């Protein structure tokens, strides 16, 4: 089995259209729930 490359992960992640602000909000919500 071929190991996933960072290039592949970045390409697939880019399809989700996520921003830095999205990341910060979801992380803050996640940690608030803990």
């Amino acid at each position, binding site marked *: 089995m071929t*190991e*996933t*490359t*960072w*290039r592949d*992960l*970045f390409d*697939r*992640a*880019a399809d*989700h259209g*996520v*921003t*830095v602000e*999205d*990341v*910060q909000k*979801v*992380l803050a919500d*996640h*940690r608030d729930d803990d």
Partner: protein
Amino acid sequence: MTEDADGPDPAAFAADADVLAADLFVDGDAREALDVARTHDWVTLVASEPLLDDTEAVVRALGDDDLAAEWRAKAESLATLVDHPEGDQPALSAAVHGGAAHVLSMDDRLQSAATGAALSGRVDVSVKSPAGFARLFDPETLYPTVVGGEYPGPDRDPRE
């Protein structure tokens, strides 16, 4: 703490979950900072299970389950995992227990917390933004001290 008498390793850093997730999703400062570790096998990215758990949860929420699982496996292959007490701020504690000199975060509150802890002598790490780290971390200057000899340039493909 695992750091030795010489202090934390200037070629080791931890990145908080916001930076790790931004590295994956956004081609910007976070990716440039993480590329420092991906391109140099003598530069250590320190992480912990709680830190990867937080990041994986963010990737699952903003991406999908497969992406989160594959990111986790890839991150574990890049990072050196350390243990730290439950309830600690994971990036800060991973850096302290992994003997790393730097913590990367986009959260100003972590910067303040680390500054306060440093002033009280409890930790010896510097919290930086990804952009600040990418700007200040100079492999060519650090290599002779950390590894020895003349800097040979990047030794790994950061996209593999």
